[in-house]
């Protein structure tokens, strides 16, 4: 089978699976899965840029996703004028102080290279003083902001721009964070990057959960504006009613299908753009250089390539793509819930997608995102059915059967672990291998 035929058959099988879900369960479920498949595919493209092109292990996908979500909130939510009045300027001033003191600390550190031990003490003192000034300025401001109608707002709000704009901002946020992490951890051994990114992603989540003035924390931000029409508005539109009648489905279902389809169209266009860009980059001299660095760092550096800088570059690019996907995810959900970010779901599952799909190959990453997300969702009904079958011989009220049925949902973690291990062992190239160029 030629590679092209293989790719085609893989994607058509995927489509067939989705259609089957549509026929057996409902079209709404199928479209929900499709939308998240598309977002997952964009995330895997981002991770694939880091891992497949450059061999960098990023264990902080969750953090970058969440930063994308934060961007969606800041860009799209209308500002809360009372909160700005209560403590906005004070908080902003404090944050400026914080920024300035970081700047001073960095300058101190750089300018005192030959001061010996004093260098550490001086920099430490600058950091401590800057932190104290920032806290003293910021704390009352934050308290004032959070006191403004805590049940409804209690945060600064955002800029009230269209939410589509947030997708770009999300990318920028993630890129900024990635630059800082990369500066610290790149250039050391690969394990350090993994641990450092794992750490930064946890911290980002803690930050989002606790800084109520910015994100409302665990109180969540609901009702983000949408880039597509609302179901209620659609239901009163005449063309929907005629269509629903012609197809013989209820108007309510028809409207939600239309909404999901328009999301799918938006996501698909982003996916195509990102895919096209990464393919072009991979085929360009830049892509050749990245692969050369990945395959043999020493040889590449002997040819005059700046390895650390190139790694930083590719790390920032990949994280930006993940950030875009994160903003899209929050847009789709229509709400920002910091507590929902779990490393298993947002970091390690994406890794399973990349490895199973085929690292180094963008098409592979996309199919990996589709397949794994599909089975992640469908593992639950399948697992339940399986458990039902296995335990069918047992008494209906036997404790073991009850326990097995109750915990069948956790089967999917096990399944994913098994899939990853089997893929690494028997098909380390993934579904669609990178191939020779």
């Amino acid at each position, binding site marked *: 089978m030629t590679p092209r035929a293989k790719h085609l058959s893989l994607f058509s099988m995927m489509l067939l699976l989705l259609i089957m879900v549509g026929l057996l369960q409902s079209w709404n479920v199928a479209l929900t899965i499709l939308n998240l498949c598309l977002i997952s595919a964009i995330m895997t493209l981002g991770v694939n840029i880091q891992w497949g092109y450059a061999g960098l292990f990023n264990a902080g996908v969750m953090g970058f996703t969440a930063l994308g979500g934060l961007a969606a909130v800041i860009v799209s939510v209308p500002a809360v004028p009372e909160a700005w009045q209560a403590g906005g300027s004070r908080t902003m001033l404090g944050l400026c102080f914080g920024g300035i003191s970081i700047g001073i600390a960095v300058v101190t550190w750089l300018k005192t290279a030959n001061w010996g031990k004093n260098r550490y003490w001086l920099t430490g003192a600058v950091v401590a003083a800057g932190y104290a000034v920032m806290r003293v300025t910021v704390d009352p401001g934050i308290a004032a902001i959070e006191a403004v109608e805590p049940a409804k707002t209690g945060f600064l709000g955002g800029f009230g721009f269209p939410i589509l704009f947030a997708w770009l901002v999300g990318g920028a946020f993630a890129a900024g964070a990635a630059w800082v992490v990369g500066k610290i951890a790149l250039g*050391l051994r690969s394990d*350090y990057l993994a641990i450092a990114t794992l750490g930064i992603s946890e911290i980002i989540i803690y930050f989002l959960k*606790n800084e109520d003035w910015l994100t409302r924390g665990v109180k969540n931000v609901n009702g983000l504006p949408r880039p597509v029409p609302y179901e209620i508005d659609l239901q009163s539109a005449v063309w929907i009613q005629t269509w629903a009648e012609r197809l013989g489905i209820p108007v309510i279902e028809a409207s939600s299908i239309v909404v999901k389809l328009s999301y799918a169209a938006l996501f698909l266009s982003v996916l195509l753009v990102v895919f096209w860009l990464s393919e072009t980059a991979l085929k360009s001299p830049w892509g050749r250089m990245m692969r050369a660095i990945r395959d043999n760092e020493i040889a590449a550096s002997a040819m005059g390539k700046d390895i650390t800088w190139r790694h930083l570059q590719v790390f920032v690019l990949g994280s930006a793509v993940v950030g875009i996907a994160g903003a899209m995810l929050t847009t789709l959900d229509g709400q920002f819930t910091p507590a929902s970010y779990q*490393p298993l779901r947002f970091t390690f599952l994406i890794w399973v997608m990349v490895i199973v799909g085929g690292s180094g190959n963008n098409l592979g990453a996309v199919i990996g995102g589709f397949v794994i997300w599909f089975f992640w969702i469908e593992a639950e009904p399948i697992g339940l059915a399986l458990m039902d079958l296995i335990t069918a011989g047992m008494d209906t009220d036997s404790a073991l059967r009850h326990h097995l049925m109750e915990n069948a949902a956790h089967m999917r*973690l*096990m*399944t994913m*672990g098994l899939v990853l*291990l089997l893929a690494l062992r028997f098909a380390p190239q993934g579904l669609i291998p990178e191939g020779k160029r």
Partner: protein
Amino acid sequence: MSNFAIVPGLAYGSQLALGALGVTLVYGVLRFSNFAHGEIMSFGAMVTILVTWALQARGINLGPLPTALLALPVGIAITIGLCLVTDRLVYRYYRQTKTQPVTYLIVSVGVMFFLGGLIRFIIGPNDQVFNDGTRFIMKASAFKEMTGLNQGLAIKASQSITVVTAVIIVCVLFWFLNKTRAGKSMRAYSDNEDLALLSGINPERVVMITWIITGALACIAGTLYGLDKSYKPFTFLQLLLPIFASAIVGGIGNPFGAIAGGFVIAFSELFVTFAYKKVLAYLLPIGFAPDGLVQLLSTDYKFSVSFMILVIVLLIKPTGLFSGRAL
């Protein structure tokens, strides 16, 4: 002050140190960062809990001590079995094909997923409390009567058990590493693989011993953590970061460093998030007592402290405080 910082710090530090020892040993001998370590700890704690329940159902207990201590040996044995089985089924193949460390790392992520699912499948995702011993060995009021001071000091039984167990384990471990043949061969293998092979050390045996020690340490650390706080499957993934930080801060691959790193991380977490209000109220003249809690960082950021320390160490001294292997 000692009530809320020093005593919990010692207990938490011992738990981290035991965890970090496992990570550091696997790193030293097998040369990869084991992301599944948190789940191994969780697995060990889970087995201990199940055995504890079985014992409790038969009415067996240790009086004032928690029954879990009686169940611990069984937990250790099963956890060791788990480690050996995963090594045989999963890691050995990559060792034989001499794969890059980063592939190992991804493999350990797969193991983490699998174990996480298995644990939730067996015991469910909920909170389990299995500490049935006495809660306090010294109550705040009793301490006041004894010393006549007006501030109480309370020591939870689980905290002192943690510290005592950790001290015993660490002593045994160091005796093993420094005095026995097997321990010496392990250190030799960790220092220089080729030289160790030349002098006739059997690598498979070294790896096996490493997994046995790691399994035992992980099970003990997980159980102690569960006794002290409570057992929740998902907390162990969060513990991974402070454990890694401890191992790296102390110098990865260096057992002594892992212990020191554990205490450094534990105490800095507690001191940075400690509310200094009462201390300041003592030190400052009357009337100057601050209004707020005077925390350097709010308690929710506990985990970020370990990361900050990690970053500082990475920037200033990448080999760690006790000069482990440079990564």
